[in-house]
């Protein structure tokens, strides 16, 4: 019996780390747009969405804390890159340069990544509401309501830029779509424990989630004249298994700087 429940817990924790780490790094990349978004209203919108998303990461870390994985703050700030389970596409930098010096960030990449990810998250959150792990199903019901506005926001940008007829906007968006899809499969990966995660009824399978995502995204692409199959890949590997890029290392260095300066401080 004890053995059984520890196997169950392994799968639950694994899935929670994936959800938490995805939202955590995604929110961090969003926060890097503060003051840099195309206009003031967008600055507010991006920041608000980013704050919501950090709240989602925090509650997933909280669920891990309740399962005895350690303090939520420590889980967010004090784990090396090779222990992180986030999808690689979410950790990639917003563009050349850095926040402090000459950020030459790509808004097209931001819009595509944000829209694709938010759509994928909405599908997972939908599935999680039927999760066999009750605390996760409860959280998912709450996240879904907040996500409604995020999805509407990014879909609007996505359609407007691609449907603008503006040459630079369209070509940059197309390039961003290509770049994002190359690694987007990683968002659907459930990692090495995928079979246990699905068998325990924690979430639907990778294939089901990906199909639903395709069904959600295809009509939107079609509405702006982009048809044909949507092929996703994992060109740079599977982040769920601890494989990451230098971009994550650098992001962790920056975002953990204050925490690492005094780990015992209370905020």
């Amino acid at each position, binding site marked *: 019996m004890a053995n059984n429940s520890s196997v169950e817990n392994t799968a639950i924790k694994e899935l929670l780390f994936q959800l938490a780490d995805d939202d955590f790094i995604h929110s961090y990349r969003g926060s890097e747009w503060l003051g840099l978004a195309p206009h003031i209203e967008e600055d507010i919108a991006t920041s608000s969405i980013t704050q919501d998303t950090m709240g989602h990461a925090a509650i997933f870390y909280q669920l891990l804390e309740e399962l005895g994985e350690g303090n939520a703050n420590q889980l967010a700030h004090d784990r090396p890159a090779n222990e992180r389970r986030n999808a690689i596409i979410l950790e990639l930098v917003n563009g050349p340069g850095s926040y402090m010096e000459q950020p030459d960030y790509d808004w097209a990449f931001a819009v595509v990544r944000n829209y694709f990810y938010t759509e994928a998250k909405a599908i997972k959150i939908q599935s999680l509401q039927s999760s066999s792990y009750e605390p996760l199903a409860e959280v998912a019901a709450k*996240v879904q309501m907040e996500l409604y*506005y995020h999805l509407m926001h990014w879909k609007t940008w996505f359609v407007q830029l691609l449907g603008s007829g503006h040459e630079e906007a369209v070509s940059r968006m197309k390039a961003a779509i290509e770049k994002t899809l190359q690694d987007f499969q990683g968002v659907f990966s459930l990692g090495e424990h995928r079979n246990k995660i699905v068998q325990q009824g924690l979430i639907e399978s990778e294939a089901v989630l990906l199909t639903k995502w395709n069904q959600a995204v295809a009509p939107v692409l079609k509405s702006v004249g982009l048809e044909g199959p949507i092929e996703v890949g994992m060109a740079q590997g599977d982040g769920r298994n601890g494989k990451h890029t230098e971009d994550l290392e650098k992001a962790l260095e920056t975002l953990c700087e204050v925490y690492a300066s005094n780990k015992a401080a209370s905020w």
Partner: protein
Amino acid sequence: MSAVLLTSEEIYKLLENVKDPEINTVSILDLGMVENVEISGSDVSVKILPTFLGCPALPIIQKNVETAVKQLPSVEGVSVEFLRSPSWTSDRITEKGKAGLKVFGISPPPRQIKEDGSWHIDCPYCESTYVTMENIFGPTACRSILYCKSCKNPFEAMKPMIKFM
């Protein structure tokens, strides 16, 4: 041993003084955030629903609830817990809460949302329906920014949060 028995009515009365830290004309009771008050001897437990998961006001609210409830001399312990379920929805805001929001220049969330997800809000100052949405996202997670074309005032509105979303 205290001879005075605590009642939940007393606690609810105190909670009327705990305002939203960012909207000081509305209590957390009128926002519909208080799900339950339990009393066990001289210990009080207050269960609260977060409006938005990432709302930075939550720890402040927790502290303010503790301070308010401890004002009763017969209270020994106070625990404040944020519940995951049920989800807070904007239709939990009371009529008094809606009036308090308007005093602050914030329109209450719309009663009805159309099937296509669209909703309508009136100006909290002049009641005009001639308004435009400037930004669905606002200065806090729960608020949107609008503009009244009649009285030329910018204003905010509570974002609707309902189950079908």
